[in-house]
């Protein structure tokens, strides 16, 4: 499967060079994205794009769903980043203290080279009379760009007519330069343009546009293959930047702890407490889960430190705990003072036990930032952390210090209400689906003859099992003046054409309806529906760009879906974990408990953090409510009622009972037998991810993350860090082994994943009532139809015959 996806992706990459750019940028671990618009092969490119996000995990080690991408329209920013609460009044429940700044880091240069990706070796071609490609990148919040340049290296067709062919560069709509395409045959041209600093914004777009003609008067064929220009992969963007001082203020949260515009991965470190307890474990894990949610597809480097002095430049240190558990707090210069082990407020009064404290402080060298979540009691610490997890609460937080007296109780969402996925109702409208900006899907119009398709997510819940009879009643309109012979409307599901209709009303149509059958077996948790309008003008002019912007097609938000589905999932199946299921149901993770050894090692903790970060990335909710326990502290009720994730090396595994459970023999993984000989084949560095039905509750799952050694656990950790590994998970057991001694940071190829299906029987998990489950059981076993119908037929017969006998007997007795 992996190979197949890779082959498909590579094939598409050859066709569409834009993917190379994307991968390149992804490899840079930046948030620069590239999309491309090519006039000649729009469907192919679109198909490439649709697959790109799913396959990029293989190529660049980062999983990105397009739905998670921010909107790159100018001046747009993710909802999370909009500082709408910056000027919000202080809540009566907390108190704001004045803030200070941290010193900026040293100035530097950042280069985005187009050829960094190991899988990109080709070129980006611009074809046709007019073509353009787009490159998108962000500007980190605290960077002041002093100088930026774009250096393009290009080669073009010798057939181009120099005075009518040129290459232009526009940045955010501002033209920064143009060069005639007049190189001699085979020569490589270079164009270096400065980008005015004022043009650059938080979200930027570079457009490289090529006008290509092969005739002084009229290029007859817009699809002439001789019309090409190649941008070579050693083209680059160069920034000279000066980092700015960062104000320590919660009003821009998650900045400065996390910068979603950063071109480099955000660095996070947690200070280990003197004594690890459930409070620290739960609070840290919840906080890290929330960071995962904020990061979405962006990389995040995490480590554990034992002293604040170990913090590196640019790294954010999180200190979570009371002064007793985090003695380092006493040595830090913080806005609030300590008296003994108790915090004092600004009036130097002792803070009540239930008040949580959040503070931002510079590190000792004034170049790092420290987040302190503390309080006089463990409960206060938890409250402080919880404040940051709940968007509604934290949006009103500002200043350097926040005293959290009370936080709102965020109710747990229904178990199957997953934002970004399909609504739980079987009948809904397009407007019930959300855009990337989390707003209802509006009426969308495209213009032009080869406009990209209108695309929307159609993500099935992981436990959705579709029956046949799923229908989309697409409502659409289109304008007049199109060519009725060649114009069409096409609906695709993940690139698979489902239905089409000729657009043959010369005067256009309003609110027309197209019924589209959605194939039951093709709707997946990462599906997308594309609606493509192929709008051809009635007359095509030969020597100009075709006039097509007057052609339009609209998909109405009133388009209606009718689905027929059941709610059922066959477990254990690690593939479901790709969406977080079942741990992310409900999405605030309130059904999840993680268990670590009584004395967790740093390796255990890092697995815990990376796993929770991954759950954060794949879930969306207003709060995080998971719990973490040490083995001995795990309450029986929690063990019996929740999904469990147990983390630890084999020798210190927190749930030894789980190892004895049916279907799981850890021993068989670590030892392999042949005839009478038993050998240990599992290398010490091999990690195991295994999912079983919880031995304490057949409707709950137990995920075991284990290894023989800490190194094995480190390998395990990478499964959840690297998208390329995580999105390969399948079957019920995965063995992860390192194939080379190269540093792990080099990427996925260092690992080999072995997938095993050990459970002999699958269990069906479902949130539906037992009556419906009975039906689903029958539904899943069609062969029961025959005995079922015969049995029911016999029952009907028996009862009917008995009633008939009684009627006849009565009749006879009356006759007598």
């Amino acid at each position, binding site marked *: 499967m992996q190979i197949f996806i890779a082959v498909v992706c590579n094939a598409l990459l050859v066709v569409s060079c834009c993917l190379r750019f994307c991968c390149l940028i992804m490899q840079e671990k930046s948030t620069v994205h590239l999309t491309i618009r090519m006039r000649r092969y729009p469907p192919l490119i679109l198909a490439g794009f649709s697959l790109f996000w799913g396959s990029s995990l293989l190529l660049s080690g980062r999983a990105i769903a397009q739905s998670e991408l921010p909107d790159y329209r100018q001046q747009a920013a993710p909802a999370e980043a909009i500082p709408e609460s910056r000027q919000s009044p202080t809540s009566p429940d907390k108190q704001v203290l004045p803030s200070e700044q941290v010193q900026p880091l040293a100035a530097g240069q950042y280069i985005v080279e187009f050829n960094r990706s190991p899988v990109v070796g080709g070129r980006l071609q611009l074809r046709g009379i007019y073509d353009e490609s787009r490159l998108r990148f962000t500007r980190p919040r605290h960077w002041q760009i002093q100088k930026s340049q774009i250096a393009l290296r290009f080669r073009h067709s010798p057939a181009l007519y120099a005075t009518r062919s040129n290459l232009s560069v526009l940045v955010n709509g501002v033209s920064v330069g143009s060069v005639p395409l007049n190189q001699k045959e085979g020569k490589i041209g270079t164009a270096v343009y400065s980008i005015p600093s004022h043009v650059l914004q938080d979200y930027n777009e570079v457009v490289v546009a090529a006008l290509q003609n092969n005739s002084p008067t009229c290029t007859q064929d817009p699809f002439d293959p001789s019309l090409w220009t190649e941008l070579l992969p050693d083209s680059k963007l160069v920034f000279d930047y000066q980092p700015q001082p960062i104000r320590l203020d919660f009003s821009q949260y998650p900045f400065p702890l996390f910068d979603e515009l950063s071109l480099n991965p955000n660095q996070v470190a947690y200070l280990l407490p003197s004594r690890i307890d459930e409070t620290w474990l739960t609070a840290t894990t919840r906080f890290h889960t929330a960071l995962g949610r904020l990061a979405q597809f962006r990389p995040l480097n995490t480590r554990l430190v034992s002293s604040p002095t170990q913090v590196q430049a640019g790294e954010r240190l999180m200190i979570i705990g009371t002064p007793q558990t985090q003695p380092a707090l006493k040595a830090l210069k913080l806005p609030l003072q300590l008296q003994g082990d108790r915090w004092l407020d600004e009036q130097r009064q002792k803070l009540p036990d239930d008040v949580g404290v959040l503070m931002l402080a510079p590190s000792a060298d004034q170049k790092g930032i420290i987040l302190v979540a503390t309080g006089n009691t463990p409960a206060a610490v938890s409250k402080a952390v919880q404040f940051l997890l709940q968007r509604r609460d934290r949006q009103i937080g500002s200043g350097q210090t926040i005293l959290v007296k009370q936080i709102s109780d965020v109710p747990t969402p229904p178990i199957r209400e997953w934002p970004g996925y399909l609504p739980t109702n079987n009948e809904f409208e397009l407007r019930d689906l959300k855009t990337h900006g989390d707003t209802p899907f509006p009426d969308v119009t495209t213009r032009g003859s080869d406009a990209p398709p209108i695309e929307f997510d159609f993500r099935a819940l992981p436990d959705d099992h579709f029956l046949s009879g799923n229908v989309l009643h697409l409502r659409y309109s289109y304008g007049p003046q199109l060519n009725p012979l060649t114009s069409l409307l096409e609906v695709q599901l993940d690139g698979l054409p489902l239905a089409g209709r000729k657009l043959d009303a010369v005067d256009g149509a309003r609110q027309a309806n197209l019924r589209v059958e959605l194939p039951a077996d093709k709707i997946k948790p990462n599906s997308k529906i594309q609606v493509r309008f192929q709008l051809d003008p009635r007359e095509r002019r030969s020597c100009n760009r075709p006039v097509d912007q007057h052609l339009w097609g609209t998909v109405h938000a009133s388009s209606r879906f009718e689905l027929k589905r059941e709610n059922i999932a066959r477990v254990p199946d690690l593939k479901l974990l790709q969406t977080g299921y079942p741990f992310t149901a409900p999405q605030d993770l309130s059904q999840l408990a993680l268990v670590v050894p009584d004395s967790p090692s740093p390796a255990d903790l890092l697995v815990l953090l990376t796993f929770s970060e991954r759950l954060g990335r794949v879930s969306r909710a207003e709060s995080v409510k998971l719990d973490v326990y040490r083995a001995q502290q795990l309450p029986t009720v929690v063990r019996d009622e929740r999904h469990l994730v147990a983390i630890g090396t084999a020798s210190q595994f927190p749930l030894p009972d789980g190892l004895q459970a049916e279907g799981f023999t850890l021993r068989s993984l670590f030892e392999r037998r042949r005839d009478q000989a038993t050998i240990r084949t599992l290398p010490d560095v091999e990690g195991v991810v295994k999912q079983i039905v919880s031995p304490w509750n057949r409707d709950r799952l137990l995920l075991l993350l284990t290894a023989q050694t800490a190194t094995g656990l480190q390998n395990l950790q990478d499964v959840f860090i690297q998208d390329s590994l995580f999105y390969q998970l399948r079957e019920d057991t995965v063995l992860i082994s390192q194939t080379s001694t190269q540093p792990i940071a080099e990427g996925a190829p260092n690992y080999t994943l072995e997938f095993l299906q050990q459970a002999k029987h699958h269990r069906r998990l479902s949130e539906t009532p037992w009556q419906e489950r009975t039906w689903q059981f029958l539904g899943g076993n*069609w062969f029961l*139809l025959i005995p079922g119908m015969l049995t029911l037929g016999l029952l*009907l017969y028996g*009862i009917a015959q*008995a*009633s008939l006998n*009684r009627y006849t007997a009565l009749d006879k007795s009356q006759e007598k």
Partner: protein
Amino acid sequence: MARSSLSLPPRFRHWRHQPAEWMMGLIDQLPPMFEPLAQSPVFIQLLLWGCLGWLAVPLLTLRPAIWQQGIVALLVILFGNWLVRLEEGQRDTAMSERIHLLLVSLSTLTTLRYWYYRTSYTLSLENWLNSCFCILLYAAELYAIGTLFLAYFQTLRIRERHSIDLSHQPPEAWLNVDVYIPTYNEDVAIVRKTALAALAINYPAGKKRVYILDDGRKYPERRQRLQAMCEELGCTLLVREDNLHAKAGNINTALEKTEGDLVLILDCDHIPARCILEETVGFFTNPKVALVQTPHWFYNPDPFERNLLTGGRVPVGNELFYKVLQKGNDTWNAAFFCGSAAIIRRDYVRQIGGIATETVTEDCHTALRLHSLGYESVYYDKIMVAGLAPEKFSSYVGQQVRWARGMAQILRLENPLFNRKLKLTLPQRLCYFSATSHFFFGFPRLMYVIAPMVYMLLGISSVRGLGVETLFYALPHILLSMQTNHIPYKHVRFSFWNEIYEFAMSFQAGIVTLLALINPKLGSFNVTDKGLTVTERSFDFDSVRYLLYLSILAAASLLAIPFWLVISPQDTQAVLINALWNVFNLFLLLAACLVAFEQPQLRDAHRLPRQLTVRLHSGNQTWTGITRNVSESGALVLLEEWPNVPDEVQVELVGDYGARVLLDAHIVRAKATPLLQAEVALQFVHLTQSQQDDLALVIYSDVKEWYSQNRQESDNPIDSFKFIAASLRRAFQEFRPEAKVKVRKQVSLSTFLFCEGWGEISYPATITELGLKDLRLELEAIDPEALDVLVPARTSLSLLVFRQPDDASPLSLIAELKQIDVLPDLGHRVLMELSFPPMLEKQQKDKIRLILKSIG
């Protein structure tokens, strides 16, 4: 191996029969298990049914993959088939009914499964045109499914009645019976036969009176003849001054004038059997019984039988009703009055204001009212009237249209299913609803033809996604319902004939029922023409005009198949299914159209395959045999030996109860059967009125059991469809009258032969065969020149016949030469065939009879 098989326990030895035995055991044992539940309170029963319904939901709604559904369909059909075979081996009717009920259960489940699938996945409501056809077809299917379920209900139990013997009661205690024979414009001869038979009904004298109720005041001459006939026969003619409410009004008027306890109502062409009252009046010992209905039966072929030339191999249209549905209705005390061949209790009918007059099917309406008052009806399945079916298709249509209109009127006016004013039980309501909604088949039937046609011609898809999957859902529904219905219907309605009956009537029934629903007061009673004779082939275009247009369109739509397959290969499944559907429809449509292709009637009178004792008298000899068939004009008689008779004999026919008639008959032909019996075809000649009356009584009245009471042929769907398809060929075959083989008395009479061309010379000859119309003689020696003079068909010969060798007064006869054969191998013997000239018949016949008599 042998040892091991021998060591099998006895119960395993017949392992092949184990599944069948096991199933029979299950079928037998299952109902007693549920009897406690059946006797439990209603709410528990409702709960039980609710649980069953709940269990059924996933089974009905599950939609597996296509191949999986295919397997389900196949297994269900095979199981159904197995049950049908199991039933065929049954002699016990109770077990047969149980297997039928099991099949009903299974068929209900498969039908509901199809219904759910059809509703959920195949409604095509994309645009108004598609939606329109889709909804119409869906409604048609709903009607069909509703009808199917109602039919299942009606046939859950078939009630077999036995007559109640009256002999233990003194005749004085028997109820008085009036026999009503309403008439309007029918031939007096037809009424006469009915009146005669009515008078001959076995019932104590003084307890029975026969009334002719003549409503034909517009035909005074006919009325006079009727009056004369009544006086002659000894019955009473009742007339009235108006024709209000037609037959119903006529009877109602008579009800006030007569005084009998019971009234036997007979259509004027329904000749009753002698036993009709003895068999039926006993049921009235139950004081709640208001009505006893017996089946209608027609001794002449109806248009379907005659025009499709079924030769009596296919049950006629009303057999299903009278042999199954009425008996099923009777189970639920819902057997209804059919207008004739029924005995009603006069007082009860008067209680409801007489025969109902609001609708044109006054009979059913009257029964509805009687049931509503709590009275009971009895259906006794013994054919005791011999009636005349409409001869022509147009008359048949007229009759059916009247029933359709009447039933629709009852449905509209009385609403038997939901009308709270009617005090009917739920089963009675269902039975009446089934009966009154039956004639709405017109438009649904047409939709089945139109749906595939509009797809092929216009691309309008009435069933969305029609394909193999649809078939896999529809086939179990269709085939299992056929298998289920096969059990009660196998002798009374053959596969696909229902479709033909309905197609033939679809337009007329559709329009009439629609109009009756809109305005139930439209339309009047029309008298069905009967006793007509079709003499030559003709096509009744008017009756099947639209059906014919539809057939042409259906045939034309088949031409679109190649275009579809080439232009739209993705629709291949739908096209092929529609095409097959269309072909199937086309056969049925053409067969239905052929019903209007009137075939000539070959015989003067309808032959009844009755087996009567017959005696042939000729001279002093008598031969006894039985009739193979008999009619008012002749008979086919089977004799154990070849009778040496001339071509005219005297025949004596004896009825089942001993009634006799003596007739002169001409022997048309005779032949030997493979068993060396003699089969003699007789034609009755010189019938006097009294002979005709006696003959009618023997044939129609003196009957213990009509031959159609039990049909031996069973339905076989494939054969049935083949037979229907072959009707296209049969209908255009030329008729060939059977070759006549002459019958003459074998004699040896000396004669002399004279001829004008021979002068004074005469030749001796021997008459070897002699009949009343011709003879055969043999000459041993004749001058060859004399032979040259003889020209067949021109030469007249004179014969001098000696009755004895020493006959002093030989008789002379004149005959024409018909044929002459010289046999050189036999010494130039000459054989001559002579016939007596018709113009001398009067003069010579007595002489011939004298000769025949003299030789004994």
